C-alpha cells in the first residue's frame, strides 16, 4: 500500500461543523446521505464490479466502525454497558434502532437487528441485501469491544421485504 496516500481517513476530516455551518447546522436530509452512498455504489460497481463494490463498502464500514468506536464510545469490557451505550448513540445520531437478539461471546455468536436503518429502511424491494456498509461497521464495533475479529452477514433486509435488518456476527477463530 502506498504510504503517502491522498485520502487516508482521519477523524479530523469530518471537520469543525459548528464553525463551518453556523446557519445550516449539523443535520441534512437523509436523502442526501443516500444519494451520496448510492451514487458511489453505482460508479464503483461500474469500475470494479458488484462483488468488489460490496467488499469496498464492507471495508469502508469497518473503517468507520473502528473510528466510531474510538471517538464515540466509552471503552468497556461489559457487554451490557457496550450495547446500552451503542443503542443510545445510534439512536441519538439517527443511525438506527439497535436490538440484540442473541449474544454469546463465548461461542462468538451475536445476532442483532437494526430497525429504521439509515442505509436501507424505506428502500424499494430489490431482492438482495444491501447493507454491506453496516456489516463492516458492526464487525469493527464488535472487534473493538471484544478484541475478536468478527465476520458479519446481513440475513434479512428491508430491501428483501423485511421490516428490520438482521445481522449475524460470528467470531473468526
Amino acid at each position: 500500500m502506498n504510504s503517502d496516500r491522498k485520502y487516508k481517513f482521519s477523524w479530523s476530516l469530518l471537520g469543525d461543523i459548528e464553525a463551518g455551518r453556523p446557519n445550516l447546522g449539523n443535520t441534512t436530509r437523509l436523502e442526501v446521505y443516500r444519494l451520496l452512498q448510492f451514487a458511489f455504489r453505482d460508479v464503483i460497481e461500474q469500475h470494479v464490479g458488484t462483488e468488489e463494490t460490496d467488499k469496498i463498502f464492507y471495508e469502508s464500514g469497518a473503517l468507520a466502525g473502528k473510528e466510531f468506536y474510538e471517538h464515540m464510545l466509552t471503552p468497556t469490557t461489559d457487554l451490557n454497558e457496550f450495547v446500552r451505550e451503542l443503542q443510545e448513540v445510534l439512536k441519538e445520531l439517527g443511525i438506527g434502532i439497535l436490538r440484540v437478539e442473541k449474544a454469546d461471546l463465548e461461542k462468538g455468536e451475536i445476532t442483532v437487528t437494526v430497525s429504521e436503518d439509515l442505509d436501507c429502511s424505506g428502500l424499494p424491494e430489490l431482492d438482495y441485501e444491501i447493507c454491506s456498509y453496516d456489516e463492516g461497521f458492526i464487525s469493527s464495533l464488535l472487534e473493538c469491544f471484544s478484541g475478536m475479529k468478527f465476520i458479519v452477514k446481513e440475513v434479512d433486509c428491508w430491501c428483501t421485504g423485511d421490516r428490520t435488518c438482521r445481522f449475524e456476527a460470528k467470531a473468526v477463530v
Partner: protein
Amino acid sequence: MTKAAENNVDLFDVAVKNLHDLLTAQGVSAEPPELIGVGGYSELYASLLEVRTAIMAFASGNLNYKVTAKGYMPGAIKALQASLNHLTWQTKMVSSGDFTQRVDFMGDFSESFNMMVKQLEKSRNELEGMNRQLLENNIKLQQQADAIRESEERLRHIAENVSDVIWTLDRSMEHFTYISPSIAGLRGLSVAEALQEPIEQAMTPESLATLRKALSNEIVNAQNHHVADSQPEVIEIEQVCQDGRVINVEVVISAITDSDGKIKEFVGVSRDITVRKKTEGLLKFQSTHDSLTGLYNRAFFDAELELAARGRQFPVSIIVADLDGLKQVNDTLGHGAGDQVIKGAATILQMVFRGNDIVARTGGDEFVVLLREMDYEEAVIAIERIRSCVEIYNANNGEPSVRISLGGATAATGEKIPETLKKADELMYADKILRKQQAPVTL
C-alpha cells in the same frame, strides 16, 4: 362454458380450497398435483406454507425458527421475531442485574415491562440497603463480640492472678461452676478439688447458713427487680483449709440475672481476712481491757455501769477495791514490783468473781467490780472472800504482798447507781483508814 373454461373453474375451486385449508385447517393440506406448475401457484403455496409454519413455531415458543421467505408478510413476522428475541435478551440482561433495559416497541407491554424493571431495581436497591445494614450490624456485632472476648480475657487474667478467690455458683446454690486458681492459696485446694467438693464441706455449718441466707436475699432482690440497684451482699464466714485450719473469709456476693430478672447464677469474691479479724479482735480487746492486768478498763466499766443503770438486773452491787501502799512499793522496790502487786490484785479478783461479773481496773491502784443481781449481803460475802483470797495469795507469793482496802454498796434501782458507787468508794476509804490504823504499811 367451454371445456377449458370448465377446467379453469375446477382448478380455481381446488386452489381456493387448498389455500383456505392452509389458512384454517389444523392439518397441512398438500399442494394439489393438478396445480403444480400452474401460474406461480407453487411459489404462492410455498410462501404461505412458510408463513404458516413460522407462525406456528413462534406460537409454540420456538423463536429460533429461521424464516426463509421474503416479502412483506414474512418480513412482518421476522420483525415480530426480532422483537421477541430482543425482549428475551433484555430479560436475560435484567436477570443478570442490568436494570437499565427498557422496552419501547411493544405498546402496553412496554409500559408494564419497564415498570416491572423499575420495581425490580427499586427492590434490589432496598435489598442492597438492607444487606448493607445487615453487614454493618454484623460488623458491629463482631466488634462487640471481640470487645466481649477481650473483656472476658481481661477478666480471666485478673481472676487468675489476684489473691482473692473469684467463683460462680449455680442457682441451685449447691454447685460451684467456676473457682479461680487462687483457691490454692486460700484453702490449699486445687481448682478441680474445690469444684468437686460438696458445698457443706467448704465451710462451717454456721457459715453455710450465713451464705445461704445471703444468697436468698439476692434472690429476693432479683424477684423484686432490685438487683441493678442493690448493693452486693457482704458476709463473713469461716472455712476449713486442706490442712485443717479454720480461716475467716469475707465474701462479696452478687446475683447474675437474665433479661427477665431471673437468677442465672451467683458470682462471689472470697478474701482471707483471718489476720484482719485477729487484729480487729486485739484492737477491740485493747479498747476495753487494761493492758497490764487483762481486766476491763475504765471506759468499759463506765459503759457497763450505764447499761446496768438502764437494765433490769437489780439489785446491783458495786465493790471498790484500792491497793494499799502501791506508791511505796513503786518508790522503794521499783515499778516492776508495783506492777506485780497490781497483777496480784487482779488475779485475786478474778479468783473471786463470776465470769459475767465486771471486774475492772479503773485507776492506777483502783479496781471496781460491778455485780448484777447481787444484794448487799452477797456483796459483803464477796468482800470477805476477797480478803480471804488476799491472805491465801500473799501466803503463796511472798513480798511484796497485796493489800487491798474494800468498800461495797448495793443499788436497788438504776437511779441509785451513781450514789451507790460513791458510797462504795467512801466505804473503801473508811476501810483504808481503819486498816492504816490497825496495821500501817511497812516495807
